[in-house]
C-alpha cells in the first residue's frame, strides 16, 4: 500500500467514526451533545414539531429549518437548574403521543394559559416559547435577511425619519 492511499484510508476511517454514533442510533439519543439532559430522539422530534408550531415556515424559514428546538435544548441544558429542567420534561410529557391538529390544539391551550392546565405544562411552554423566539431573532438567517444586525454600523443618526401613518 502506498503512503498516500494509507493516509486516505485513515481519513475515511476517521470520518466514519465521527458519523458512527448517529448511524447506530435507533430510538437513541438526541442529535446534539447535552451535559445534563436525557432526551430521546422521539422527544427531540416532538420538540421540533412544537417549535415549528410556534414559529412555522411561511415564505421564510421556520423553526424546523433553523433547528430552533436544538437551541432550546442547548439553553435548557446549560442555563437552567435541575428543578427547571425536570419541570420542563414533565411538562413535555403532556404533549407526548400527540401530533397534527391534536398537538396544535394542546399548544394553543398552553399558549393561552387555559385555566386548569398543569403547572409544569405552563413551565415547559414558557421556556419553550421564549427560547424559540430568542433563537429565532438571534439566528443567522433572521439577522442576515429579515431584521438586519450590523457588526460595523459606522454611523449614528438621532433624527432618522420614520414614515408615520
Amino acid at each position, binding site marked *: 500500500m502506498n503512503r498516500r492511499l494509507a493516509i486516505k484510508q485513515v481519513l475515511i476511517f476517521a470520518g466514519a467514526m465521527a458519523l458512527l454514533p448517529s448511524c447506530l442510533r435507533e430510538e437513541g439519543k438526541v442529535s446534539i451533545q447535552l451535559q445534563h439532559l436525557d432526551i430521546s430522539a422521539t422527544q427531540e422530534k416532538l420538540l421540533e414539531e412544537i417549535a415549528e*408550531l*410556534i*414559529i*412555522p415556515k*411561511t415564505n*421564510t424559514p*421556520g423553526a424546523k429549518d433553523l433547528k430552533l428546538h436544538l437551541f432550546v435544548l*442547548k*439553553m435548557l441544558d*446549560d*442555563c*437552567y*437548574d435541575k428543578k427547571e429542567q425536570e419541570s420542563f420534561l414533565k411538562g413535555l410529557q403532556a404533549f407526548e403521543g400527540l401530533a397534527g391538529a391534536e398537538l396544535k390544539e394542546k*399548544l*394553543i391551550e398552553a*399558549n393561552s394559559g387555559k385555566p386548569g392546565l398543569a403547572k409544569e405544562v405552563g413551565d415547559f411552554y414558557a421556556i419553550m*416559547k421564549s427560547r424559540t*423566539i*430568542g*433563537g*429565532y*431573532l*438571534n*439566528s*443567522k438567517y*433572521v*439577522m442576515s435577511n*429579515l*431584521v438586519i*444586525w450590523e*457588526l*460595523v*454600523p*459606522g*454611523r*449614528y*443618526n*438621532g*433624527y*432618522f*425619519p*420614520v414614515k*408615520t401613518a
Partner: protein
Amino acid sequence: MSKKQHTYDAIVIGSGISGGWAAKEFTEKGLKTLVLERGRDVKHLIDYPTTNKYPYEFEHRGELTLAIRKENPVVSKCYAFREDAMHFFVKDKEHPYVQEKPFDWIRGYQVGGKSLLWARQTQRWSDFDFEGPLRDDFAVDWPIRHKDLDSWYSYVEQFAGISGNKDGLAELPDGDFLPAFPLNAVEDYFKKTLKEKYTGRHVISSRCAHLSQPRQVHFDQGRGKCQNRNLCQRGCPFGGYFSSNASTLPWAAKTGNLTLKPFSVVESVIYDEKLGKASGVRVVDTNTKEVTEYFAKVIFVNAAAINTNLILLNSTSSRFPNGLGNDSGVLGKYVAFHNYSARISAEYEGLKEFTTDGRNPSDGGYIPRFRNLLKQETDFKRGYAAGFSAYRSPERDTSGMGTDLKSQLLNKHLGPWQVGSHMMGETIPKKSNYVKLDKDQKDQWGIPLLRISVDYDDNDAKMKKDYLEQMTEMFTEAGFKNIKPNDGGQAPGLDIHEMGGARMGHDPKTSVLNKWNQLHDCKNVFVTDGACMTSTSTQNPSLTYMALTARAVDYAVQQMKKGEL
C-alpha cells in the same frame, strides 16, 4: 540575576488606565520603565477573540450558563460580564476577598486592566467638585483645584481622544474635544424641556473616549475612527475607544524604554531604612510563585484603587509597621464609591416621526450635578449626576403563536420612545468604610486577603430618594408616561468606581498623599489611581486619574533631575 539587571529608572505597578499613562509618560521622558501586571498579556487586536463575532456565533447567544453564574455570584452581577467579554474579568474564585459587608469587587487582571472594559465616560471635574469637602465639611480639603489639572486634562484629552461639546457649564469644564456624538430627537427634547422649566439643569451629549474624528496623534497610535459598534467590551479592532492596550502601552513600547512583565503580582513595596525611601518592589510570579525583587528610583502604584491599598498595607517595615506611608493611620480608610443604585424609565408618545439609526457609543445624554451645586439646598450632602437616553424598538406582541407570532417578530412598526436614566451619586468618604488585611487568610500567592467593609449610609438613601423624585418630576414635566422609578439597589462596588483609602490632602496627619500624589512619608512612591481620591464627586473618574498621572510623572521626573528623589 543580579540586582543591577533588575534595576530600572521607574517601576509602574499595574497596566490599566492610570498605569498605562504612567508608562507612556515615563518612557517618553527617556526613563527605563518596568510595568508590572498581575494578569496575562492582552495585545491590541491579537487578543480580542470575540471582537468580530455575530450574536449567533456565541453558543448561548451572549448569555451566561448556570454553572458560570453559580461559580461567580459576584462578577456575574456586572452588566458587561457576558459570554462575549467574560474572559476579561476576574472570576470569583481566582482572587477571593472577605466581605464584611456586601461589596461586589469587579476586577480585570490582564494587561490593560479594566481600560478594556470601562464605560468610556470622560467628564472633567470642576471646582464645585474639588471644593466639596471644604465647603460641605467632610473628608479633608483637596490639595488641588481645577486650575492645577486644567492643562493636564487637555493634555490627556488630546492624546486619548475625547468626543464632546463645549457646553460652557461651570460645573463641567470644557476640554479639548473631538466632535460630540449627537443627542437624538427625544434626548434633545428633554434637554429643551429642562432648559425651559428649570434653572441650572442641563442635558449634554455625554463626553466619551471615542474617536468621532481622529486627529494625526490618533492615527500615529494606529487607531482609527469609532465605527459605532458598541461592542467595546470585547476590545475594538479599530482602536475606536481609548484603552491602555490600543493607546498608551504600544506608544510606550515604541520608545524602546518599556519592559512589560505580565503574570507579576506585587507583594509589597520594599522600603530601604538606610536611604529613607523605597528601593523597589517584591514580585510573585503568578504561575511559578517565584519571588523576584526589582529596583528603581521611583515607584508608581497603579494597581486599581483597592489593590493599591492592599499593596501599601502589606508593605510593612520597622519604619512603617502599619503599611507604607501610613504614619497618619488613615491608609485603607475613607473608601468611597458612586451610588448607582437607582434608575428610572418611562415612555414618550411624541416625536414619532423620528427614530435612531446606527448606534451611539456615547450612551446619549448626561445630566451634570445640579443638586446643592451653588449652595446647600436639601437635607443631604452633595448630589448626583445622571445618564439620560432614549431609543425606539419595534412593537412586538408576542402573546400569540404560529404565523401571527412570526409576523409580530418581524414587524418593523416602531413602538413609542423608551427613555431611561440612572443615578451617579456622590458618596461621602468615612472612616468606617475601609479595607484592611485579613490577619490569617492568604491568597494563592501568599498575599493576605483583603477584608472590605463599605456600605451606604443615610445620606445615600436621602439622595436616592431625591433623585427618583426629581427625575419623576422632570419626566412628568416632559410629558413622559408610564414612569417607573426603580430603586432595586445594588451593593457598593458594582458601580466599579471604588475610590480612596490613600487620599490626597495638605496634612500628613490626615492624609496619605500630597498634592503631587506623592506619599507624604515616602517621597519616591506615588499613587495616581482611584486610591488617591479624597472625595468622589459624581463624574466618572478615569479621566481625572489620567490627568493626575501625567501631572505626577512630570513632577516626579523634575524632582529626579533635581536629585530630590
